[in-house]
């Protein structure tokens, strides 16, 4: 999936509220979106500000067929880290692994 396609799909999922958060029996509080420390609107703004050089991708280590999308834009001097994947490519429910500053 290209950066543009990943960004578009992430924004679509966020705007539709079609998002989940990865858990490993416990939920990580480093996922600030999951625990409500940052809002969906804030993450939408962060994703919108991301550019191609802020983006990287890698296979999920639990399932090599799942592509993990990592965005690390700097917004108003703050570095963001947004890591998510889609349960069904090329779009659908976005599952966030981590959202933090």
């Amino acid at each position, binding site marked *: 999936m290209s950066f543009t396609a990943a960004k578009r799909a992430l924004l679509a999922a966020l705007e539709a509220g079609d998002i989940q958060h990865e*858990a490993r029996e416990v939920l990580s*509080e480093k996922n600030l979106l999951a*625990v409500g420390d940052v809002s*969906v609107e804030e993450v939408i703004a962060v994703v919108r500000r991301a550019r191609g050089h802020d983006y990287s991708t890698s296979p999920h280590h*639990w*399932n090599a067929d799942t592509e993990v999308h990592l965005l690390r834009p700097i917004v108003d001097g703050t570095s963001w880290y947004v890591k998510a994947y889609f*349960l069904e490519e090329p779009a659908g429910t976005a*599952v966030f692994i981590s959202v933090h500053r």
Partner: protein
Amino acid sequence: MKIIEEGTRGVALAPERGKVPVVFEYRDLTLDSGLVVRDVLVGVAEDTREVVTVPAQSTPRIRLARQAAKEETFSVRIPLELNDVLWGVCYELGANPTKFNSALIRFYLHEATDDREMARRLKKLSTASLAGRASKTKLTLRSDASLLARVKQVEERDGVSRSELVRGAVLAAKEDVFDRPRKQRLAQLRAIAEAV
């Protein structure tokens, strides 16, 4: 917001196993700080029963549970006469006494952290004879950690204890409601009384 109903089935990634079938159920969810949030909708792996995903609709509940966990209670000993003042203020404003006392004291403490004049007023009132009587009853109050941290700064800045600030707050309420009522302050206190 997409709302998932209990019993809905789907898929999610599980540690070391990749995609697995899940069913959404209301369960107690543990956060990595150890906090347990009751009755949260989560996606559970059908075979191992482990929690592997949390839908967006559970976030407000998790957020509120974390905020509540940050709230602290603190207790101060006060004279019985000051307790009567609190009951009197509560009665006068038609408030629910179980929640109003904390809200009233929090209001004055918050004012003292924002306004040095209020901090000085509470300190001065804490030396009044009514506040100096034997403290025979315990007042337990709820507050959030951030307010208590700011109160701590007032304590250090103005050389006053938290107990003194609370005793001063009770007497400030007495002045503002009974002795020298001012329209604006009374309106604030009435708004608090109605809100709790």
